[in-house]
């Protein structure tokens, strides 16, 4: 029997541990089905200029009612730019959560932890629920907590790389040392097994975009990730036995037949 497994974030009680990204979808009209298959409650969006030549309703038209919107600050290269984008996002009137994403590196899209701490401090003071995307560094994570972050979101691997938990050992340290806020593994998770592994380690949740959005069947992949996350979480709660170097027989070592 699965026990009820809810958690708190930004003053909300969540049951889902899979956050969904909405970028790179070939057809955004499949979003309701993807959200349902993922069982997602939190969904990310980005802020961009209205196309004056071909105006559209934007992605909001495809996001089911009742989901928690998590606008990101993608495009920001400095703390000030992230703050500006966060304020614009809040002015959309869809809540006050923000994923801070400050990137000055075009090749690996690694976040600038120092600038992220500064933006977190400003936005948390302004009442935002701040979820900072960060490189998994213990001191940066502590600074983000001190700055008022509602969670920290270390990257598993570079955005869109599908490489999984390339930062496994560093994330393990955050999971061991940071207990004041949830840790949500964001970026690089390319397969459900990657998400399961993060959850087995004790992550509170995973954020997945590319692996679902660019799958041949995004709806089926959303379901696969939901199962991976749920399986990993259940294993974590079940208490996994330690890894051993040597064998330990599973069958009794007594009562063998004569001649064996």
């Amino acid at each position, binding site marked *: 029997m699965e026990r009820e497994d809810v958690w708190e974030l930004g003053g909300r009680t969540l049951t889902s541990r899979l956050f969904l990204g909405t970028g790179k979808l070939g057809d*955004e009209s499949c979003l309701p089905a993807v959200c349902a298959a993922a069982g997602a409650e939190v969904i990310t*969006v980005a802020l*961009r200029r209205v196309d004056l030549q071909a105006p*559209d309703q934007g*992605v909001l038209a495809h996001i089911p009612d009742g989901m928690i919107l998590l606008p990101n600050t*993608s495009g920001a290269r400095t703390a000030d730019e992230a703050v500006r984008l966060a304020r614009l996002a809040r*002015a959309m009137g869809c809540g006050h959560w923000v994923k801070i994403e400050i990137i000055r590196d075009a090749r690996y899209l690694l976040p600038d932890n120092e600038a992220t701490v500064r933006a977190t401090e400003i936005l948390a003071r302004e009442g935002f629920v701040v979820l900072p995307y960060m490189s998994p560094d213990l001191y940066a994570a502590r600074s983000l907590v001190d700055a008022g972050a509602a969670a920290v979101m270390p990257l598993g691997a570079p955005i869109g790389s599908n490489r999984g938990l390339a930062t496994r050992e560093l994330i393990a340290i955050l999971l061991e040392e940071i207990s004041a806020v949830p840790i949500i593994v964001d970026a690089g998770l390319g397969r459900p097994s990657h998400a399961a592994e993060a959850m087995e380690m004790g992550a509170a949740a995973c954020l997945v975009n590319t692996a679902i959005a660019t799958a041949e069947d995004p709806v089926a992949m959303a379901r696969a990730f939901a199962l991976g996350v749920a399986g990993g979480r259940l294993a974590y709660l079940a208490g996994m036995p330690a890894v051993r170097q040597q064998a330990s027989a599973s069958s009794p070592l007594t009562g063998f037949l004569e001649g064996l």
Partner: protein
Amino acid sequence: MQVTINGQQREVLDGMTLVQMVDSLGLIGMPMVAEVNGEIVPREAWGTFVLPSGARIELVRFVGGG
């Protein structure tokens, strides 16, 4: 007078309000936020907000993103 909307130079009538400009672009009713010269203009103020000459206007909305 000249203004810049999302990086594009446009000629608009003197005294034009923000809501008139948004209307002229066919964008009324679309979910978006307006920023003029770096300051967010709340939607309820669009009707009375007169565009200054040379205004730099950003009209933004949510798109898919991670």
